[in-house]
């Protein structure tokens, strides 16, 4: 039996979507979730890393900022730099921007309250490891649950990320005042992805459409292809 791809799920004190993310990853037969502690400086044999949502360090000081400076983030940084897949969901996204791994910043929602609701979204960039199974322009519905999700970036950088096609997902009815309705974003290389909506909350069909599952399936497909390529190019 071929070994499964190990997907590291990072837990900071205060992370609370860890178990949901673990379950979502477990649903994909090709993926094997493994816990990563905020204290870990290296992950062995990981194929991808996911930073789940929650309130790391109680959102103290500023959301994501303390977690962005914890030991594990050095590892996540070099992992990302080497081109391997990294996904940050909600607070994970906030941590990635605070760590400078993704551009921009996430400000308090324009309505100043926490928002937990379903959002209609449009998928734009399907070239990342987490979105290969989507077709550009695909409409999808995912829940959001955040108080600081208003994506902001200076105009020059905004132009740049738009030009490079780094915008992954946009809201149809901008709930939080994000620049250009941006709900999800990739880095320049396309291997690091941040999402404010929660794909891990829509992986079953008990209620609502399981639109989140394709993100994890995409990852499995991407990793399978990578492996195949490695095998092919091996002497």
């Amino acid at each position, binding site marked *: 039996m071929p070994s499964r791809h190990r997907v590291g799920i990072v837990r900071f*004190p*205060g992370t*609370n*979507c860890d*178990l*949901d993310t673990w*379950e979502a990853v477990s649903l994909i037969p090709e993926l094997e979730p493994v816990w990563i502690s905020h204290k870990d400086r290296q992950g062995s044999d990981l194929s991808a890393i996911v930073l789940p*949502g*929650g*309130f790391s*360090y*109680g*959102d*103290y000081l500023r959301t994501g900022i303390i977690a962005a400076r914890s030991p594990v983030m050095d590892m996540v940084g070099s992992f990302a730099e080497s081109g391997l897949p990294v996904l940050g969901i909600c607070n994970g996204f906030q941590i990635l921007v605070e760590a400078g791994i993704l551009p921009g910043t996430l400000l308090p929602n324009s*309505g100043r*309250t*926490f*928002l*937990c*609701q379903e959002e209609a979204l449009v998928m734009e960039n399907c070239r990342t490891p987490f979105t290969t199974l989507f077709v550009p322009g695909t409409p999808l519905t995912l*829940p959001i*649950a955040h*108080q600081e999700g208003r994506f902001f970036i200076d105009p020059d950088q905004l132009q740049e990320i738009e030009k490079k096609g780094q915008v992954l997902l946009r809201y149809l009815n901008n709930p939080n005042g994000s620049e250009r309705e941006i709900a999800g974003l990739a880095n320049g290389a396309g291997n690091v992805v941040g999402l404010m909506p*929660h794909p*891990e*909350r829509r992986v*079953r069909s*008990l*209620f609502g459409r399981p639109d989140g599952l394709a993100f994890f399936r995409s990852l499995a497909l991407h990793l399978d292809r990578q492996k195949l390529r490695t095998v092919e190019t091996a002497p």
Partner: protein
Amino acid sequence: MTAVPTSRFRIPAPEMERIRTLLGRDPNLTEEAVFSALWSEHCSYKSSRIHLRKFSSKGPRVLMGPGENAGVVRVTSRTGIAFKMESHNHPSYIEPFQGAATGVGGILRDIFAMGARPVALTNSLVFGSLRQPRQMTLFRRVVAGIAAYGNAIGVPTVGGEVWFDERYSKNILVNAFALGVVDEDGIMSAVPPPKPLLAVYLGNKTGRDGVSGAAMASRSFTGGDTDLRPQVQVADPFVGKKVMEATLRIIREGLAGAIQDMGAAGLTSSSVEMASKASLGIEIDVERVPLRDPSMEPWEVLLSESQERMLLLVEESRVERILAIASDSQVSAAVVGRIITDPVFRVRKGEAVFAEIPVPFLTEEAPCYDRPARDRALPLSPTAHHAPSEAGRHSIAELFHRLLDHPNGGAADWISRQFDFEVGTRTLLPPGHDVAVVDLREEERAVAISMAGFSHPLTRDPGLGAMLLVAKCVTDLAAVGSWPVGMTDCLNFGNPERPETMSDFIQAVEGIAEASRRLGIPVVSGNVSFYNETDGLSIPPTPILATCGLLSSRRRVVPGKTTRPGLSLALVGSSTDLSLGGSYLDWILEDPEPGSVPLVDWETLGRLQPFMSAILADGRICASRAIGRGGLLRTLLQLVSGDATLGVALSLPRLEDPLETFFSEAPGRILLAFEPDQLRTLEETALEFRIPFQRVGSTAPRLWTIRYRDREGRVKELTDNLEQLKRRYAVSLAGQMEDLP
């Protein structure tokens, strides 16, 4: 002795006398502080104890009943649900954000102290009229406080209710309910085993916040209560989460003998109550308590209600491992005392003894009052939220608009979207349905939670009104096909020293006790909040109930709203008494001579649940909703709220009393939506279960038409602009909250 003993902790003079008699001497400062906390209404239930015995907590499923941190009821072959509700009314009025947040934190600690992982929160909120800016602020900040705690700790807030009523302006109600899941063999208790045990403190360091909070919550407010802010505790959900994970781990590893959270009266009540349950004594050394401020006096340490703290009684051999877990979880922990065979509560600071009180003096010997009760001669004060109206002169459409236009009749989305209701991904029915349903992830089962706290029927008749609340819960649960397995309550009342309040209280308790006994629902936990009174004015009697129901198949959960046109609609259940007394319409109209409160048809109600289970098991129903606040019309509007353009076309027979048909909230009736070809089977099943079944119409796109014949047989038609109705419903609460400068 000639001088009347006065107390520095506001202990009433007769109780001070009693303390002197018991001790045979004057209590010192620390001892007096301890008495003030444990003899407070909040801790001792001195005015309610003799009445609460009327509740039955027995049942084949009950694993843990009253006396524990929370009740536990078996729901699968190997798991139980632990649940409880508590009030945080007084603190929330003084500091709404922290008051509400600590209310959530406190109820969660009660749940995980039992070894249960919390999986759902709900709340019941009652405020004064939103026309007052102060109420607007209180409401906004209470919602934000609940959100801040629940969202951060990662427990979904899956449902709740809200009510605005002038009579609560000086005493808002913030009641929080929590539910957790626990393996039957992993249930923790607050009753220690008879072994030599050490007392281990776990969690946040102790500060001066919340000192004497229990005593504060045990008296009425007066005009000059500006000095109470320091008695409100401060929440820290981040530490709360770390304490929760550490506690659950300690329980999972079997390291603790007994656990109690440090809630009201903090270290004092948790240590004394656990020792008392084992008929033992306990010694606490305040010098070893982790402190934020080392200058704190022993009595302050004892009475502090700093949040996120647990007290564990453990065998000495386990201490090392517990301290290691605490350190790994980054929370403070320390051995602060020990169980002693001599049944005394001894407080030391190093070698010096600061208090020594026999434990029974603090618990069994605490005052227990059978306070005088006297029925009200006059009805309760008018609601005064509107100028008196001329009932009867309004058309049905106008009345319906009035019900929708008041924030009490509007959609509560503005509240629920501030709560993360999905974290944990167990939420099968989120807010916006009648009940919340949470996946148990075991044996395909799920649990439904129904909240009922509408006080208006009780202002009309406390006893019958309380029974209505129980019947409402059971109807709500039946609507999703669940059967009730347990109930918890929070009894919010005014000043028990007033005979009228006491009379309301006794009648309400008896009503709940009788109704729950009739339906076989054990009352497994509960809480009493007295002294909801300011400047002599008490709130109306407001018991708030939360009833848990069990669903045998999580895949058959039926929603409370639909998006589909062309479905048939039917009303099932008993319509023998549709009196309007105590209804939302009655409240809006402030009828000076109200109708009676409807009597519950218990017989039919008892058959409703099996009937609903039968038809839901066959998957015949697309949506179902109990007739609730506002009666049939408002419930219809909620049923079609799944889609912006979906309405209804109803055709009803001759109506004796159209007002009753459209606005009665008599429990025991459920509105069903189903494919038209199911009609015959459903009618047959209803006949078999002897459940009245009445087809009323269909869901229809862009329509709101209701045809009926009046008493004289004339055809009447109620047609309304659907878009406007939906808008009224959507904005009546949210519109007020979003119009900020």
